[in-house]
């Protein structure tokens, strides 16, 4: 509500400023219809907002003025000087009240009746002598409202600046330059990069803007269907490009309606299934690297994949043989097929069939993807991954037929030499097939598909193959060269260009020449490739193993070069140094609201940002601060084991140099993670809360889950009590009694600050 009020104040203030000219003009010429309309619109808007925001005083004033102005517009009243003055007095008063609301000061309302009375047709000309109230101090605005257009213009000037800088750098490169000039250029580059970052941030908005409408929608939808749904929203403060937020709106609404309609069962069915009557729906957002994850999970019935499969056969989308070959995931993915819905009954809430296919297509258009985690009978979790910003995409720039094209990096699986050992190109009929390490892939020659060259790229000994992954299947795209990888600002191209089906957008790279972004799936469709959900590729695993392990070569904080297997690294990201502190006995990194234990072989020093490797073993996340990442290398088979214990597993030779191999296992082993809290400890609460404050953290650190009352269906493994008697049905062996006095008291009890004895007693009582 506060946000709305702030918006209202800013908007009213702005309109008033713009209106001041109109008011003066209207005063000079009361019959001017355009001015009258402008003022009418203003009071009308204020009236509308007031009802909504519960501002009765403003509502009363604006309502009175609106009535009079409406009468003037209808020609029932003549805008004489008295009327104009009275209306203007009200407009002024609206401005004063708005300022008073903003600064939080009180404003005397005694004269408002007079103001309204002055509007009456037979009002005595007292309007002039209205008491002039002093303007309350206007607070300094901490925010300004900006037109999105302006932000877009700023963004495009920004790109222009980057282009200008690049051109300058290019020109300077052609001639010998002074170190001073070079330094200045360097500084310019830094500033431009920083500014680009800031400008990008101005376009960010909290995902709250997307989530705020959900409670109402869920409530209405559930009420319509006679269901009960308890909605939990988490992570509303995650930020996302505002354009992205708009594009996410429809897919999210669709998914949530689906969850309430198809996912969550009617109360009676839920009772029968042993669930709580109210279904649970959780919507959460969090940031992971340069992606935002939006997770929608319900505890409803999940997707019945068998029924989906049956319907797919009935609708002749797939043959029974094809279905039989599908794994669980492939069957689940049928839900994305147009015209296929897991539900038989069409309701008013969710449409029919159309739905998830559209949702997925929309998400893919903005560079996102969607994942389903289905637990039949127990619920469905949908995870949406979207890039942090629409505007910047990581691409591979390729050359074909003398022209450059970009391909989204995420769709390129790998790039190979046509004449490389791992590749064989054959012709089957008039189709080309590439066999890559035993895997047969349809091949499309980009140059000839685009009509750019007659020669067959696959015949060219220098040609390359890009393996493109689409959601239907993979194929090999024959190209002439791979030029670069580039972060690009991608925009949609003109409709006539998009209609060709092979482009996903256009972009202006640093070269200053426009470039088209290829659409991997579109090219497959235009080339007429047909994919079958083929049997999984065997043997690839063994082939992969022979290729050796990929590892990241990096320069560590102590200046040494080390490697770490790529599989252990979740991602590499720069973090601000101030997020890293020695707390609770070790270095920790505060990131995204969580604490991650951090390894650093040497002090980080005075830099403001440090790259960290984020490692995960699936359960625990740790971070490893480095100086900088160098490149990805393939590890040789031979590893000389390290002497003694430590975080170095051994030494390998990479490009003739001795490199230490960091032991990911030792890094995780060095982290004192709490053992899983699977033992339940009942705290017989005292009135003072001593147990909760003092005892609970110590017990939880020892791996117990503390509760004040045992949840139904569970039983406590151990019961801790001090003054209160243990529950009558408790097994005495499970009870640990504490006493307040260091000595004396019950011999079986433990002094309450004797931690080792307490932990030992807990373990005994829990039966270990």
């Amino acid at each position, binding site marked *: 509500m506060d946000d709305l009020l702030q918006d209202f104040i800013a908007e009213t203030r702005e309109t008033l400023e713009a209106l001041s000219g109109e008011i003066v003009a209207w005063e000079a010429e009361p019959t001017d219809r355009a001015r009258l309309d402008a003022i009418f619109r203003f009071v009308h808007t204020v009236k509308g907002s007031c009802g909504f925001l519960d501002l009765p005083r403003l509502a009363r004033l604006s309502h009175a003025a609106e009535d009079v102005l409406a009468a003037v517009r209808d020609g029932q009243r003549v805008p004489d000087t008295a009327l104009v003055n009275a209306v203007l007095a009200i407009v002024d008063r609206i401005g004063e009240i708005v300022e008073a609301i903003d600064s939080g000061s009180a404003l005397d309302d005694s004269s408002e009746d007079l103001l309204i009375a002055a509007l009456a047709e037979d009002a005595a000309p007292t309007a002039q002598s209205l008491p002039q109230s002093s303007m309350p101090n206007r607070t300094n605005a901490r925010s300004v409202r900006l037109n999105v257009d302006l932000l877009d213009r700023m963004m*495009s000037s920004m790109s*222009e600046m980057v282009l200008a800088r690049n051109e300058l750098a290019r020109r300077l490169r052609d001639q010998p330059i002074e170190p001073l000039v070079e330094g200045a250029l360097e500084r310019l580059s830094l500033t431009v990069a920083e500014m680009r970052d800031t400008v990008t941030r101005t376009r960010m908005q909290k995902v709250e803007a997307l989530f705020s409408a959900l409670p109402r929608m869920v409530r209405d939808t559930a009420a319509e269907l006679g269901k009960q749904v308890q909605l939990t929203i988490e992570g509303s403060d995650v930020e996302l490009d505002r354009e992205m937020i708009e594009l996410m709106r429809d897919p999210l609404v669709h998914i949530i309606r689906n969850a309430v309609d198809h996912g969550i069962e009617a109360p009676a069915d839920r009772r029968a299934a042993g669930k709580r009557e109210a279904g649970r729906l959780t919507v959460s957002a969090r940031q992971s690297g340069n992606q935002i994850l939006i997770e929608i999970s319900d505890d409803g019935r999940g997707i019945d994949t068998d029924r989906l499969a049956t319907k797919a056969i009935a609708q002749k989308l797939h043959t029974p043989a094809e279905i039989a070959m599908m794994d669980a995931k492939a069957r689940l993915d049928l839900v994305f097929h147009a015209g296929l819905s897991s539900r038989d009954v069409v309701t008013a809430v969710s449409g029919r069939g159309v739905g998830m296919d559209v949702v997925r297509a929309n998400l893919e258009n903005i560079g996102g993807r969607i994942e389903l985690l289905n637990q039949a009978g127990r619920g469905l979790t949908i995870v949406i991954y979207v890039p942090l910003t629409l505007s910047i995409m990581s691409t591979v720039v390729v050359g074909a037929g003398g022209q450059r094209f970009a391909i989204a990096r995420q769709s390129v699986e790998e790039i190979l030499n046509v004449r490389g050992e791992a590749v064989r190109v054959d012709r089957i009929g008039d189709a080309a097939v590439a066999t890559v390490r035993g895997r047969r892939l349809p091949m499309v020659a980009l140059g000839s598909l685009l009509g750019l060259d007659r020669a067959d790229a696959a015949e060219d000994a220098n040609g390359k193959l890009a393996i493109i992954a689409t959601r239907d299947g993979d194929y090999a795209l024959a190209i002439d060269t791979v030029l670069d990888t580039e972060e690009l600002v991608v925009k949609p191209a003109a409709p006539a260009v998009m209609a060709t089906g092979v482009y996903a957008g256009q972009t202006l790279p640093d070269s200053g020449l*426009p470039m088209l972004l290829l659409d991997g799936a579109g090219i497959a469709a235009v080339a007429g490739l047909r994919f079958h959900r083929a049997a999984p590729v065997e043997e690839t695993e063994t082939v992969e193993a022979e290729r050796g392990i990929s590892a990241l070569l990096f320069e560590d904080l102590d200046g040494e070069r080390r490697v770490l297997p790529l599989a252990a690294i979740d991602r590499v990201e720069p973090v601000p140094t101030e997020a890293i502190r020695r707390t609770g006995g070790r270095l920790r990194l505060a990131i995204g609201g969580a604490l991650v234990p951090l390894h650093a072989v040497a002090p980080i020093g005075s830099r403001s940002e440090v790259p960290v490797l984020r490692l995960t073993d699936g359960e625990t996340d740790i971070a490893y601060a480095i100086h900088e990442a160098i490149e990805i290398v393939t590890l040789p088979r031979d590893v000389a084991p390290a002497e003694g214990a430590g975080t170095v597993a051994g030494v390998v030779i990479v490009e003739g140099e001795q490199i230490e191999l960091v032991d990911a296992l030792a890094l995780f082993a060095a982290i004192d993670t709490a053992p899983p809290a699977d033992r339940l400890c009942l705290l017989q609460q005292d009135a003072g809360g001593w147990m909760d404050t003092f005892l609970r953290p110590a017990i939880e650190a020892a791996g117990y889950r503390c509760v004040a009352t045992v949840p139904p269906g569970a039983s406590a493994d151990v019961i801790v009590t001090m003054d209160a008697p243990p529950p009558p049905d408790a097994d005495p062996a499970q009870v640990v009694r504490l006493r307040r006095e260091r000595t004396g008291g019950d011999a079986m009890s433990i002094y309450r600050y004797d931690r080792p004895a307490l932990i030992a007693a807990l373990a005994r009582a829990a039966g270990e």
Partner: protein
Amino acid sequence: MDLFLIAHIAGRGVAIDTTQIDSVVDLSPVVAVPRAPSAVRGLVALRSRVVTVVDTGIALGLAAMPADARRAIITRLDGHHYAMLVDSLEDVASFARQPLSSGLALDRGWAAAADGMVERDGEPMLVIDLARLVPAPQAIAA
């Protein structure tokens, strides 16, 4: 009276409503768009924006513009910018827009693009609606 820009397209003088015109530019080299309709000559960078270049000759169903045509009128349609190639530009003046003379049989693309006429010193000129020269998306030829 509206303001019109007098230009030459496909060897004819035409009038273009200035409200449709963003700017008038000389284009830098054009990057081709393979598989696009032939009226789309390609893409060009205009400041930090990518603009689609339209060969107005082909758009009118006539011969293609010469390869070295550089002068273009920038117009905006549905959020996209287009550079409409022209032979040459004359000047801007106000004219009263008149309906097309009855019985006038316009040919090919001219009929589709014409949106009235103006008279300059007794010489009638077609008013061209730039939006109708922007190539429409074509179905994908498999």
